[in-house]
């Protein structure tokens, strides 16, 4: 299966190892991966700030970079959500609509499209707190939420649970937002940092050694909070665990 890989700007710049793990993981499960070299960002930072006019050219660039691919995969739930549900600053041509509907977050692509259930190459004998970002959880609906009365399910937990040796621990406020929220983390720094501290403390209290997530931007924020508080927590993108990069 041929896929185009979208590596969000903050992963490209700060967490190349997450992009690498994603690429290798996709190759392991039998995908041929293209990485369009002119990619930058999906436009979410501007659009989430209300600045649709400023998002327009970035969205247009995204759409042209990924035009024609049947599968566009990204290791970031909020970017996948933006592309699929909110990339509306540009004209909605059939090509743009196809790019939008063909975009998947990595876990939903592995779970729903490829149908991977086993990761025999991976092993992670650690206690892990799973953080599912709010866009991944409530917009992409990769897991059931504590607010809705529905049967419990979790695609990230199901895949992570298949890794040898892993133990998933459950924080008390299992799906409360960690307070990243894109530019919210700067606009509303006091509340954002408080939410981040509360989130990592909740995971620590549940016994987590690692916080693992399909959402690296949440982890960037949580890691920043944990490091400042000198908490003994480590942070990994879910691709790093599923790929067996981290052990």
């Amino acid at each position, binding site marked *: 299966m041929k896929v185009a890989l979208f590596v969000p700007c903050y992963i490209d710049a700060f967490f*190349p190892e997450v992009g690498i793990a994603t690429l290798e993981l996709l190759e392991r499960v039998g995908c041929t*991966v293209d990485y369009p070299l002119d990619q930058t960002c999906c436009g979410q930072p501007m659009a989430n700030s209300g600045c649709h006019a400023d998002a327009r050219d970035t969205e247009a660039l995204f759409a042209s970079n990924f035009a024609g691919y049947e599968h566009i995969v990204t290791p970031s739930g909020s970017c996948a959500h933006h592309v699929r549900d909110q990339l509306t600053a540009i004209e909605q041509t059939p090509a743009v609509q196809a790019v939008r509907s063909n975009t998947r977050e990595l876990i939903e692509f592995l779970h729903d499209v490829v149908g991977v259930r086993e990761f025999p190459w991976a092993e992670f004998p650690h206690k892990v707190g799973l953080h599912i970002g709010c866009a991944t959880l409530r917009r992409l609906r990769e897991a059931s939420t504590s607010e809705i009365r529905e049967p419990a399910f979790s695609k990230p937990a199901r895949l992570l649970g298949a890794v040898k040796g892993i133990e998933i621990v459950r924080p008390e406020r299992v799906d409360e937002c960690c307070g990243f929220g894109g530019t919210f983390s700067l606009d509303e720094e006091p509340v954002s940092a408080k939410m981040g501290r509360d989130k990592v403390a909740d995971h620590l209290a549940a016994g987590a050694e690692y916080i693992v997530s399909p959402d690296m931007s949440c982890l960037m924020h949580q890691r920043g909070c944990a490091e400042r508080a000198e908490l003994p927590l480590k942070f990994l993108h879910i691709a790093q665990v599923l790929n067996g990069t981290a052990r």
Partner: protein
Amino acid sequence: MSRVDHAEASSRFIKAKDHAEFHDKRLWDLRRKRDGETQALPEWEELRSLASAIKEHTLSHLGDYLEEFERNASANGMVVHWARDAAEHNQVVHEILESHGVTTLVKSKSMLTDECEMRPYLENRGIEIVETDLGERIQQLDDEPPSHIVVPAVHKLRADVAEVFGRTIGTDAANSDVAYLAESQRRHTRPYYLKAQAGMTGANFAIAETGSFVVCTNEGNADLGANLPDLHIASIGIEKLLPRIEHLGVFVRMLSRSALGSPITQITSHFRAPRPGTAIHVVLVDNGRSERLGMDDFWTSLKCIRCGACMNTCPVYRRSGGLSYGSTYSGPIGVIIDPTFNLRKYSSLPFASTLNGSCTSVCPVKIDIHAQIYKWRQIIAERHQLPMVKKEAMRVAGKILASPKLYRAAVEAAAAGLEKLPRALVYNPFNAWGRQREVPAAPPQTFRQWYLKNRKGARR
């Protein structure tokens, strides 16, 4: 009117550690209890859909139902008034009170009268007003607005209440025993029920078919206020209408479960007609609701039944307190209706959200709150109400991210630069990220640089 600075206010809120911790825990506890109640009802999600559909139908035929309500309420012997806005509402209420020679009014909880700023209006005209809901009374005595639409004094600790009562009703300010405080307040307030010539309530629901209205409370204060004096005034927002009495059950089942995590309010009173020799006046208030009803993106905010579930679940509200929103309505529901009152004043509020969407998921009438917050941000940007710094940052970001060349230069320089900067330059008060968080370490190369070295060649 100056802009509300939510971030600044929340910073002060968080600094009061004991208060902030209590506030978050108390409201999370309500959210948890709400989860327990909703998980116990197999039909919960069905009820939400039904409630939403009933409200949307009613709002789409609001004019008809309002007239039906007026006809039936009048036939029942109630007097119905119409108020276009807050000023007209206050005037109408004052005229009713004046014509009945009222000098003291006991009133139960009503967000609408706060929205209309009725209390100062009437007090300036010589009318004594006593809030009888415990939380509202605490807030009145402390000369502060309510911070939550269901639990108005939730931001106060017991010791704060003891201090307020000590200062205002003569209790022992050092005694923060709950039973003592509640009993003292009761003794202080009870005589007003007998003294008052009028009682005022809001309404949770008004039924077109029966011309009756329903008040849901937990303390019994509304019923004393409505029944002891000979005059009862009810201020009702026009969005409170329900078509038929059979629809009421859906909402009564959801209201308190959503609000407090209890199956039902202690008291659910139906007011249909005045007792012989007494009068009930109903004031139907618009105050911007018709205009909101005409807004394609925001009209469904009128479905709100004021349960406060969105506030209890909101991680930002719980950590910033209701007063930080600088408006009658705070939390997620406040964020989406406050800008309809004053876009400039409340332009920071839609940014006081991570767009996590928990509010939408708990809303018993399925208002897509997070989507409306997102939409307000666009309107605020289009109407040039963004702070200059943010506007400029987004303009520059938009330029860089639209150009592969500029983008590559920026990320590669930023990564390389960060490494070399002294810590004091990265972690300073002007860098909001670094104030309480570490900045990620710069990697030796970007993903793209790695890709070009390790994968390129073979592919396009």
